[in-house]
């Protein structure tokens, strides 16, 4: 795992996010501050509408805060242009969404290698790294299958391989187990936990799933756009 410097993977300082809904202003985040260190395996939990996904979107440079500052590896995201944010997402952030993560016209291999290809990594390096990752997530032999030829769990594993292929600063996973059965969910969590422990990949989940919260070493509970509780080193303790 590449460690670029001593800065945390992500840091939010007094972040507010306000949406306009008709004539009303709706606050998704109200002065939220949070630091995600490198190597963490953290779950954001909380009731629906509490601000979990908004927090992930801000850290993932998909959205901009109304006020406050978001840092990624110590870099303030506010002054970055749309193009720079796009490059930052490509190079430093991995995404795993709830479902339908993959491009349907690409094979499992092509989906997993796409970020590397966007980065301009040469074909031989891409091949070596992607085949290794697909083997790590248990998809050896399924490289040429299209998403519609894979189960939901297999698709999520391809998404995980894609998310970590470029050695990102952190992987943001929004409800990654929401659309799979419990056995598949456990298997996906095994894979992500192994990647975190063995490769040092930083994972930040947004989840309602108790299994994710059980496995997370840090659980941050968000209520009404603020950090309500922050429990760390749970799994080590357990």
């Amino acid at each position, binding site marked *: 795992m590449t460690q670029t410097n001593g800065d945390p993977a992500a840091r939010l300082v007094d972040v507010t996010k306000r949406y306009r809904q008709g004539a009303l202003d709706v606050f998704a985040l109200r002065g939220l501050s949070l630091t995600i260190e490198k190597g963490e395996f953290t779950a954001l939990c909380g009731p629906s509408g509490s601000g979990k996904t908004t927090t992930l979107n801000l850290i993932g440079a998909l959205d901009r805060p109304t006020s406050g500052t978001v840092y990624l590896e110590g870099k303030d995201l506010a002054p970055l242009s749309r193009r720079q944010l796009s490059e930052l*997402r*490509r*190079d430093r952030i991995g995404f795993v969404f*709830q479902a339908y993560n993959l491009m349907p016209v690409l094979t499992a291999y092509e989906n997993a290698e796409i970020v590397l290809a966007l980065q301009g990594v*040469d074909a031989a390096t891409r091949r070596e790294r992607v085949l290794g990752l697909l083997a790590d997530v248990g998809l050896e032999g399924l490289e040429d299958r299209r998403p519609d030829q894979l189960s939901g769990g297999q698709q999520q594993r391809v998404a995980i391989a894609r998310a970590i292929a470029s050695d990102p600063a952190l992987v943001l996973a929004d409800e990654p187990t929401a659309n799979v059965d419990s056995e598949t969910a456990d298997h996906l969590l095994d894979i992500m936990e192994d990647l975190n422990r063995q490769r040092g990949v930083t994972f930040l989940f947004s989840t309602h799933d108790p299994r994710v919260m059980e496995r997370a070493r840090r659980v941050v509970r968000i209520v009404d756009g603020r950090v309500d509780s922050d429990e760390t080193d749970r799994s080590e303790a357990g």
Partner: protein
Amino acid sequence: MFDTRLPSMAWRNLWRHRRRTLLTLSSIAFGTTLALLFTGIGDSNWAKMIDLAARLGGGHVTLQHAEYLETPTLSRSVHDVERIRALALEDPDVVRAVPRISGFLMLATAGQSYGAAFMALDPALEDERSLSLLEALDEGRMFEDSRDPGIILGARLAENLDVELGQKVVYTLTDKHGEIVRAAARVRGIVRTGTPTVDGGLCLLALDALRETLGYGPQEAIQIGLFIGDQRRSDAVAARLGARLSGDVVALPWYENQPDLAAFIAMKVAGAQFMEGVIALLVAAGIFNTLFVSVMERVREFGIMLAIGFSPGRLFGLVMFESLWLGLVGLIAAGIFVAWPYWYLSTKGLDISAQLDMSNSEIAGIAVSTVMHVALYPETVALIAAAAMTATLLSGLYPAWKAGHIVPVESIRLV
């Protein structure tokens, strides 16, 4: 480096909705086929009419006195004909150069008199390729030589004058000095073209015989008609020769000498282009619809692509490649669609005389053919292909822009 994969992704995206793509391709192919056939039929017809007009009149390019077009009198003549002919024949596009005298005269027999146009020619230099009337020589024969004292009449004119082969007519006209001159000629031949203007109002005389009557010198004529292999080069030939000619002689392309025919063709071409524009617009609307719907169906997918690092420019490029593929495959399909009708119409033609009674139809004195042929020039095919591609790519612009401007945080929520 990844951009080399965009065409492949775009290609695969097209076939996600096979039926929709096939329908869109069909519309591109059908529209392009129609444009090719319409244009090919038009180009073939106009080229035939222009060639026929050239072979009825002054050639594809006419060398004549600078004032003859404005004041067409026999005093506005060209001198030194042989030298100018030789100069014209040096041009690589000129295949034939023939001196002629043309104008109007009065024909009279014992009982009748009629006005007619005349053309005096040198039979040694002319054949059916320079004078289409010779194909229509129905009775009698061509002049023996340039001094032949005979006359060849249009069939209707001969009927009106009530003369037959071998009988005498008297023609009267003004000479180069404005004096009235008169000569007698025996009917040597009768032409029957089927075109009322020609059959009823034209006669032919031998060049040197008429020169003598008019008081012209042996190197004097009204015009030198030039014939070229491809009428589209008339402009270039006229320009080249115009620069080399000195004195009072000018080089005029056919459309300056035949403004009525040129105006008719220009009007028809404009009408055809308007129709082709309407077809292009309809096809473009179909392509736009396909691409736009296809983009709107993939909003979430594009959101995820933006999230993982695709730039808006790449998404724009992806949709434009989809548009490009549609255009290219549509053009290939058009090539397949058009092959058989093109082969049939170019080799056999379609005789529409049974459907339309056009036996006496003429435009500016030029007979209209009742057999439809098609002929496409390479540059016309290139132009139509380029227009189809442009229409396809323009149709893709907005959907591509839309794809590049999707907001990932909003689109990813859509499941």
